[in-house]
């Protein structure tokens, strides 16, 4: 039994972050560090110093994410391994047709098609789970969602490699046209959802969130078959910048969060109608859970959307000569931002809860969707690439 003050302190001091790291965490750190060094070794010549920094930053993010959320370790490892496998079998474009693996699994086109099958399947499964209250089915839903997210990200990474296989130095990061960002949207939204599913340990929200993902898949497929949007086209000079690599993904974390919040709004309105004694009450998420996750996602979305908008301004300053030109995309970014600032104020400072906030979150999705799609469809401006 400790006596002196010093001893007491020593005994009661909480372990620091480093002390709390498990062996797996250290292994993960090592793995990512190794991968980063390897990346530099292979690509050093091709990188400008911004890209060197971005790579380091990405590595740091991966480490942090892995430490904070251990399922992410497996996910990232698998995605990277499979993408590398694909790339190693992919010396020239023809391989996509000749190589069995690429043709049916790992070429960007087939990977994205797998994603487009897996997410709707996940939606269905979650739906059945919700209707039947069957726990195992829900677990299958989660597995399918993970698989879909993996397929999608692999699709993008491999597509990145593919762009570099074309003649004439076309190579670019595939987050630069509507087709590509739709894939990105589906993947990011799924991942953010999976995080909160684990955090809240309930799968009952899955159906609602996967609905919006499936909707975007629907659009993606239409865009693919009607417009042949999967074609890899060279970038216009203004887009050819390292800013793209950080601005777009950041932005889509925002969009993904807002989309989830809106679907939870729907869930909230439904749950609010269900009598507590009905069997549905048990299967649907509780109002408290929905409320909590909505707030979390909108906060996360707002934070990242803020960063994304600022990055956008920095890029604009470099590409168009002005950090803010009130071009439609920018104005709508502001609208979205102010809209959620308003939401947060009511929710946080006035402590407003319940249906009105749910409705607001749903309306918010329409505003966001317009900023993301409508602007490209109906309004022209500096952002008029990525047109439909």
């Amino acid at each position: 039994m400790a006596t002196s003050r010093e001893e007491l302190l020593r005994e009661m001091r909480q372990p620091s972050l480093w002390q709390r790291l498990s062996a797996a965490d250290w292994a993960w750190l090592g793995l990512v560090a190794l991968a980063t060094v390897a990346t530099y070794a292979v690509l050093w010549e091709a990188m400008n110093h911004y890209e060197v920094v971005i790579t380091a930053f990405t590595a740091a993010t991966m480490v942090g994410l892995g430490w904070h959320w251990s399922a992410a370790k497996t996910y990232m490892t698998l995605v990277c391994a499979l993408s590398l496998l694909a790339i190693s079998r992919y010396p020239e474009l023809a391989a996509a047709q000749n190589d069995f693996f690429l043709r049916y699994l790992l070429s960007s086109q087939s990977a994205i098609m797998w994603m487009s099958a897996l997410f709707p399947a996940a939606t269905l499964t979650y739906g059945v789970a919700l209707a039947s209250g069957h726990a195992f089915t829900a677990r299958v839903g989660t597995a399918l969602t993970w698989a879909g997210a993996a397929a999608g990200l692999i699709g993008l990474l491999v597509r990145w490699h593919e762009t570099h296989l074309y003649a004439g130095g076309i190579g670019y990061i595939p987050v630069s046209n509507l087709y590509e960002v739709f894939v990105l949207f589906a993947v990011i939204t799924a991942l953010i959802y999976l995080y909160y599913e684990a955090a809240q340990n309930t799968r009952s929200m899955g159906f609602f969130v996967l609905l919006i993902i499936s909707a975007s898949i629907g659009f993606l497929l239409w865009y693919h078959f009607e417009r042949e949007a999967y074609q890899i086209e060279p970038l216009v000079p203004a887009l050819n910048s390292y800013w793209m690599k950080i601005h777009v993904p950041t932005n889509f974390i925002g969009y993904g969060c807002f989309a989830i919040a809106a679907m939870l709004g729907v869930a909230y309105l439904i749950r609010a109608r269900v009598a507590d004694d009905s069997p549905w009450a048990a299967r649907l998420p509780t109002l408290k859970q929905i409320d909590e996750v909505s707030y979390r996602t909108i906060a996360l979305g707002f934070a990242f959307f803020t960063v994304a908008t600022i990055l956008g301004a920095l890029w604009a300053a470099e590409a168009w000569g002005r950090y803010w030109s009130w071009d439609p995309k920018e104005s709508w970014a502001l609208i979205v931002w102010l809209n959620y600032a308003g939401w947060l104020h009511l929710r946080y400072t006035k402590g407003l809860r319940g249906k009105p906030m749910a409705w607001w979150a749903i309306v918010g999705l329409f505003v966001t969707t317009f900023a993301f799609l409508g602007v490209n469809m109906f309004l022209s401006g500096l952002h008029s690439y990525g047109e439909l």
Partner: protein
Amino acid sequence: MAQTAASLTAGQTSARGENRKGLGAIWLEFLGSMNLAISLLVVVSIASVIGTVLPQNQAYTDYLIQFGPFWFEVFRALNLYDVYSAWWFMAIMGFLVLSTSVCVSRHTPAVWREITRYRTHVREQSLRALSQHRAWQSADDPARVGEVAEAAFAGHGFRVRQETRGQATIIAGMKGRATRLGYLFTHLAVVIIAIGALADGNINLKIKEMLGEFVIETRDLPVSQIPQQSWLPAESGSFRANVTIPEGSFTNVAFLQVRDGYLVQSLPFRIDVEDFHIDHYPNGMPKSYSSDLVIRDPALDEPIRETISVNHPLTYRGHTIYQASFTDGGTKLNLTAHPLTGRGQAQSIATHVFEDTPLTVAGASRTLEVDDFQFFNVNRDPRAVERVGAADEFTNVGPSFNYTLRDDAGQAQAFHSYMAPVEIDGHWYYLHGTRSAPDQPFEYLHIPADDSASMATFMRFYQALHDRSRVDAASTRASERMLRQMGIANPDLGVRVAATANEMVTTLLDDGFGEVNAQLEGRVAGSARSAMLLDFSRAVLQGTLFEIYREIKAEQTGVALDRIQLNNDQQRFFEDAMNAVSAVADYGAPVLLELDHFNHRQATGLQITRAPGKNVVYAGCALLVVGVFLLFYVSQRRVWAMLSPRSDGGTDLLVAGTNQRRPELFEAEFTTLTDALDKHLRQPNEGSK
């Protein structure tokens, strides 16, 4: 969570609302109120919507067409063509900033208290009221318990203050107070960004305009003739201007577009453009373009040389110079004008892009306005599989140029001609396009290229068709041959046939084959053997043309006319030539311009901006990001330990804590804390909760 806000806003507002206060105070109340803030957030959003749905800063005439005179005026009055610099939009923004700053200033004291005060003065019942609290009756004496509690708090990362009130001792701990700074940072950032943006926004320009410090120029004048009243002095305020500079030329001004006119912005230095480069993707799309600039400034002892490109601007003396666009810089063109009237000689012309040259070809006088020049034209090869990137699927058909011919009455006709012949399924043609109206696509004359890949043979053939005597001779020979073949020996029939052939040639030249057929059909109508007659007449016409072609071939090759043989290509050429002749009738221009030689000169489009507020805005942004993350991802936690000595020498201990932002997370934290206490306190019996 709710009560935080209450403590900060609503609460205070209503609390103050009770007692009477002056008008100023009420105003501040209103300005700083959350309701106003939120309403303003919404209003700004809606206003921004207008600005995006209605295309901004278009030519006023476009709006006029779009909305008609009445609404055009209304919208203009409301400044909807430039919403974001409209006074009312500025006003709303100003309000938002004002309200934010009032809000910040009003809350700062409260926030500061939250950050600095440990609340050592709490009363017992308020601690018991907290959802997270626990009590012990320990056998240890107060001093010892105090040590343990303080160690436990410190061990869990709390900063600790101690205070003794009469018998009782209170140990208060706090961590994660940075979240309070988050509030200050976000809201200060909003204000800072707004101030910076204001400095860069064009309201200072608006103010100057209202003060009548300058007049917007709407005419298209050379710089030297623009009156001083439309000039802006160098290094005054912010601006965003554009200028186009041909290679090897320079500028020390730029132009900023204001509503339906422009102003001249003078620069404190001179920009020379030494060279402009552009490289392309295989499909002809520009991949990147760049300009070699030289900055000359008396203040510099060495001129600055730098190459700028898209996404890689150059900043000098607070001005940033961007690669914005490119156009032709007045490429020099050497042309040959071939008369299409049959009279006059071909003549050569030297001109430049964007230059007007008077022309008199074969009596007809026109003004030649060269509108543009394309160094190359890449077409996707229709035969290639639809796949981007593979270089083989694209073909470059070489340079082309656009020009307009304007007659004395001011009537204009637009043309587009290629310099080199273009291959169309195995045969080569010179393409000369024209169009009936600006919104129509160009329709091209296909003039066959001869064995030496030139238009010479065709031109010769075409001229020959205007030579009466030649046509006579040819038609006579043709008709005689035909009659002979048909075994008809009838001289004056021959003469008549020949005469018809001559007329048909003239009709062909004036109106094309369509008209020729029409006339023929008119003639043979009613006659018994009309079909046969038609074929015959056509055959004669063709024969006549063919005779002329043979003649020319004979002249060119020096072979005697009766011994000349034509190969398939030449046969084919003849057919193409006939079609071209017919098409020329619709071409509608007295001359055909052939591009012999050019001297390519490009111009770079630069955008020059000056934004003094930029760094302020960036600083604000940094503050905003930090603030937002502090707000969301740090949460302030407070804990208290209240010790009061017991008669038996032991101690009554009450420990409580809160996390206003994330209570759901606090439960676990509180438990580990109390468990730690359990381990180190001697406690005969657990106190009531």
